[in-house]
């Protein structure tokens, strides 16, 4: 790790006064949050608080009406999720966005396939992708799925591992995870949490959406709380308690 003289340089992504309305519904109102490199930032809030909408703005699905999103001080203007991905922002969607009928390696390289160029035709480098997929999977996952097996045959935890693997590969800087353990059992949750910590230790910034307070307290370094489309507070996880976060979410406490 390099030691930075400027303390603000460890802020990877800054959301400033972002607002977004769908017709009369004000989904986001002047939301400002920051995410730091090498940290897990949790985003919590009740259903409909605007967490998903904010995440969709960061990952390029929605464009904010007002406000800016900037990375390393440079303002980002995404037209589509592809732009966000090129900027190094990867999202692990709640439904995982895996194609069950394709193999693990095909999913890992979906729309980023490696090819051999033979004149005008580009032929898939199947061997190369399988080899690299094996490397990606074996460095990350604890319960390594076979890269040639179809995703349909994997357990929930293995699928999550594949999805996280895909997000973590390809030199991404920020990995957004929407409820990564919502559908998992106790053991699998523990393994996925290990993976999330590993991502942080490798220097990725992680934005974690979770309803599980114990998990948020266990994993995160920073918590942002949303309520009714606004960001109602931010805390360092070490300086707060689960009760305080719940109070912020329900509106019992105003920061």
């Amino acid at each position, binding site marked *: 790790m390099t030691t930075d003289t400027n303390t603000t340089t460890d802020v990877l992504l800054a959301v400033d006064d972002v607002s977004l309305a769908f017709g009369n519904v004000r989904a986001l109102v002047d939301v400002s949050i920051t995410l730091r490199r090498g940290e897990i930032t949790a985003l919590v809030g009740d259903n409909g608080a605007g967490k998903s909408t904010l995440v969709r703005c960061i990952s390029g699905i929605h464009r904010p009406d007002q406000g800016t999103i900037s990375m390393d001080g440079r303002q980002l203007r995404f037209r589509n999720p592809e732009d966000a991905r090129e900027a190094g922002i990867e999202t692990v969607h709640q439904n995982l966005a*895996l194609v069950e009928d394709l193999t693990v390696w095909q999913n890992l390289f979906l*729309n980023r396939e490696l090819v051999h160029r033979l004149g005008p035709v580009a032929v898939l480098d199947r061997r190369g992708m399988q080899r690299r997929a094996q490397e990606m999977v074996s460095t990350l996952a604890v319960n390594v799925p076979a890269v040639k097996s179809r995703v349909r045959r994997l357990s929930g935890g293995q699928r999550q591992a594949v999805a996280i693997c895909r997000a973590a590969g390809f030199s991404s800087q920020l990995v957004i995870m929407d409820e990564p353990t919502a559908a998992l059992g106790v053991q699998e949750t523990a393994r996925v949490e290990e993976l999330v910590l590993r991502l942080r230790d490798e220097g990725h910034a992680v934005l974690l959406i979770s309803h599980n307070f114990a998990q948020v307290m266990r994993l995160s370094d920073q918590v942002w709380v949303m309520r009714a489309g606004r960001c109602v507070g931010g805390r360092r996880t070490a300086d707060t308690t689960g009760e305080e976060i719940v109070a912020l979410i329900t509106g019992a406490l105003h920061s």
Partner: protein
Amino acid sequence: MTTTGTAPTRNAPVREPASTWTRRLRDVSFWAEWAALVGLVALVIVFQAANSTFLSPGNIASMLVAAAILVILAVGQTFVIATSGIDLSVASIMTLAAVVFGQTYTAGWGLAGSIVAAVVAGLLVGAVNGVIIARGKITDFIVTLGMLSAASGAALVLSNGKPVTIINTFLLRLSSGGLGIFGWSTIIAAVVAVLAHGVLFHTRFGTHVLATGGSAEAATATGISTRRIKIAVYTISGVLAGLGAILLIARIGAAEPAANTAFLLNSVAAVVLGGVSLFGGRATILGPVIGALLLTALTNGLTLLGVSQFYQPLAVGVVVVLAALLTRFQK
């Protein structure tokens, strides 16, 4: 990896080959995956036992020629079904393309010009299908059902309902000549199948076709334009229908505005027999090709046995439904 962990797994693969084979044979999904091949082998055995001319070189050659058009249409249909769509207009597009060939040929466009016109007609109609389905967000079934009617109507309008006789030495050689026992149309169909296999499994486009059919949502999330894929597969189906039209004209020596309904049903049947999932996402080219061969062998064999033509559609129907039942056991 720890050394203690590798010891038990080392033992397993040694015993596996024998057990996996017996397990495979008992596994219904194995039979479902290879339904077309199993059916083809069974039919060949039965027909050969009943009539020894079935496997004569002459009959094999004529079966392969007869299967050529169906193979080409089934390949196009496979791309469409792989994206969880269906092209009900494929036979009508072939009819329209044939009529376009007939009209342009009699108008003096020459052979090359007419071939291009027929293929372009197929391409355009297929692209219209794709654009309406992708942009208009209307179900594939309805759009291509409408196109089935529209294209055969257009064929009647263009030809004024009359067939055009085409006399051309090149087309005559195409239907009767060949290399050894393989007729030119058989060779063309084989080339189409090999190219299609390459496209489906060795290009990014092919992977994106399977991803679109497997999960359109996931494909979109990774930045794949499922609209473009949809438009492309219907265009491929249209182009191949245009190519089929040329082989059809070569075979019957005329461009007719006749409805080729049997080709539509058999193209879907060949794909289903080939173990391709109608829900999309899983496809092979070899399967539908074997499916098309099976359907051709079935009608050919029944004819050899002197069974009335009226029984042939009945037999095809039974075989297809049986195959569809088997695919329920696919994993």
